[in-house]
Structure formats: structure tokens, C-alpha cells
């Protein structure tokens, strides 16, 4: 990663929130747990639709109908995910700078978000199970699994 960004990461860690997260022995684990609950909400919202796109799960409902139902939970889950994620990052920004898993996540997360809202989200109207829906569903699952796994992997180095 560009060394020029390092001071920014250092600054992040020194912010009031960053120090607050680091100084409490409970803050980081509690925020992590909330981050995990939000992961579950997002996971559920995405998997219900992706399974359906692959031709599994709730087959009696239309793909677009299910996507409509999960949207508020997906958006709400993402909001919690991003805010807790930022807090966790501020708490250990310098460690993240040197962490490969962190960068994998930072590169795949925007791709997953753009894919979900700008690509998948726009192709749902009238979409039936078929090659197209299967491709979209598998791509979505793979992208989000990589984001989630890379996220967990930040903690191993």
C-alpha cells in the first residue's frame, strides 16, 4: 500500500474515538459482537434472495418480491455494519495498515456493495430463475463470503 497513506492511519488511531475503543477492555469485543449481529442480518437478507436466484429456498415467491422485503433489513444492517466497522478500524488503524486481510476487505467491499445495489438490484424486475439469475446469485454469494472471511481474517495477524 502507498506509504503516503500511513500518516492518515496513524491519525485515525489517535482520534478521540480510536483512543476510546483502545482504552476500554470491553469496547472492542462489544463492538465486534454488534458487528457480528449486523453481519447475520445482512447475511440473512442476502442469502434469502441469492438462494432464490439459484433456484433454491423460497421458490413460491418472486425474486423481486423477496428482494423488496429484505431491502430495509439489508440497508439497516449495512448501516450498523459500517458504523461499528469504522469504530473497530479506528481502534487499530495502524495494525490494519500492515494487514493484508484488511486490504482484501477494503477492495472487495466496495465491489460487493456496487454489485448488490447497482447491478443486482437493477436486474431484479421480472427476473425468473435461469442462467442469468444463477450467475447473479452466485457472484453475490462469492463476493460477500470473501468480504466476511477477509473481515474475520484481519484478526489473525
Amino acid at each position, binding site marked *: 500500500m502507498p506509504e503516503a497513506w500511513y500518516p492518515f492511519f496513524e491519525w485515525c488511531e489517535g482520534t478521540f474515538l480510536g483512543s476510546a475503543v483502545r482504552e476500554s*477492555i470491553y469496547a472492542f*469485543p462489544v463492538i*465486534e*459482537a454488534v458487528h*457480528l*449481529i449486523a*453481519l*447475520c*442480518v*445482512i*447475511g*440473512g*437478507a*442476502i*442469502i*434469502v434472495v441469492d*438462494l432464490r436466484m439459484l433456484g*433454491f*429456498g*423460497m*421458490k*413460491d*415467491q418472486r425474486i423481486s*418480491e*423477496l428482494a423488496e*422485503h*429484505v431491502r*430495509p*433489513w439489508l440497508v439497516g444492517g449495512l448501516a450498523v455494519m459500517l458504523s461499528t466497522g469504522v469504530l473497530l478500524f479506528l481502534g487499530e488503524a495502524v495494525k490494519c495498515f500492515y494487514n493484508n486481510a484488511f486490504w482484501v476487505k477494503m477492495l472487495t467491499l466496495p465491489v460487493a456493495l456496487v454489485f448488490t445495489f447497482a447491478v443486482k438490484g437493477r436486474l431484479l424486475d421480472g427476473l425468473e430463475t435461469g442462467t442469468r439469475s444463477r450467475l447473479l446469485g452466485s457472484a453475490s454469494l462469492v463476493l460477500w*463470503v470473501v468480504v*466476511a*472471511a477477509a473481515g*474475520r*481474517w484481519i484478526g*489473525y495477524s
Partner: protein
Amino acid sequence: MIVGILEWVGSTKWSVMLLESYYAWPLLESTHVVTLAFFVGTALMMDLRLVGIAFPGVPVTAFTGRLLPWTRFAFALMVTTGLLLFYSSPLRYYNNIFFRLKIVLLMAAGLNIWLFHSRIHLKVAEWENDLRPPRAARIAGLLSIIIWTSVVFSGRFVAYNWFECDIQPQPGWVNFLAGCELVGEEAMTGP
């Protein structure tokens, strides 16, 4: 007796290899976490429908019929990876107060699921299309949300055990609940 067995399990070749492995253990744990999103995620979607705050117009049986097999499949993966993680360090988890809490919560979740399927769900045909399911179903859904959320919290805290048996002195009730066996001086100087 249990301690003796777990001590032996933890000393077996595969258990030691797993604990000391560079990739296997993190791979197992990240599978546990990714599967968590799958398992608790799909369970939560069903719970939200049961509570009556999501998926209006989608019959409850679409969840309990079509989605539940996938939730169960994910749960099987959850248990498998969880057991392997336990196997890597059995005694440490056995004496971990959050691990013990998690097991109790899992039993509570099981009881809630059993009550739901053996009673409330039997007459699902009468209310599967109701936007607001009967009170008992709403309570089961809410309980499920609360219990699984607590399971996730206690599961995450297992890794941050602030009440490790090695860290003494601890309050007596903590040592009791964690099953810590204090020896010599520690036993004398406990608060």
C-alpha cells in the same frame, strides 16, 4: 473425571496439531463465522416474519417449509466446525464462563424451537398468511431473536475471557460457574 477426559482429548495428536496449525484453525473459525451469517441470518429472517415485522404477504410456511432445510444445513456446519474448535482446546473452553453460557443459551434455543414446532407450528395452516401471527408464535420469534443474539455475544466473548481460571483472584461465583479448580495459594487468597 470430565477434566481428566478433556485433558486427555486435548493431548491427542490431532488436537495439538489443530491448535498449533497455521491455517487449519483460522480456516475453521472463519468458516464458523461465515456459516454464522448463513445460519443466524436465515433464522432471523424467519423470526422477523414470526414477530410480524417483515415479509408481509409471504406465508410463514415459505420459511418453515422452503427456507428451514437451509437453516438446518447451516446449523449442521456450525456444530461441526464448533466441535472441531472445541476439540482443539477442550479444557480451555470447558473452564470458559462464556463458553458455558453459550451452551446454556443453545439449550434454551433448542427448547424454544421444540416448543414452537411441537405446539405452535402444528396449526400453522390457520394463521400462515396472517400479517401478525398468534401471540405464542410472536413470542417464540422474539425469544429466538434474543437467544441467538446472546449466543453470538457469548460466542465472541469466549475469545476474550476476562474470567480465565489463570487470572486470580476472581469472585467466588465466577470460579464456581467457570469450574475453576484453585490450588494452593490461590485457593487461600480468594476474595
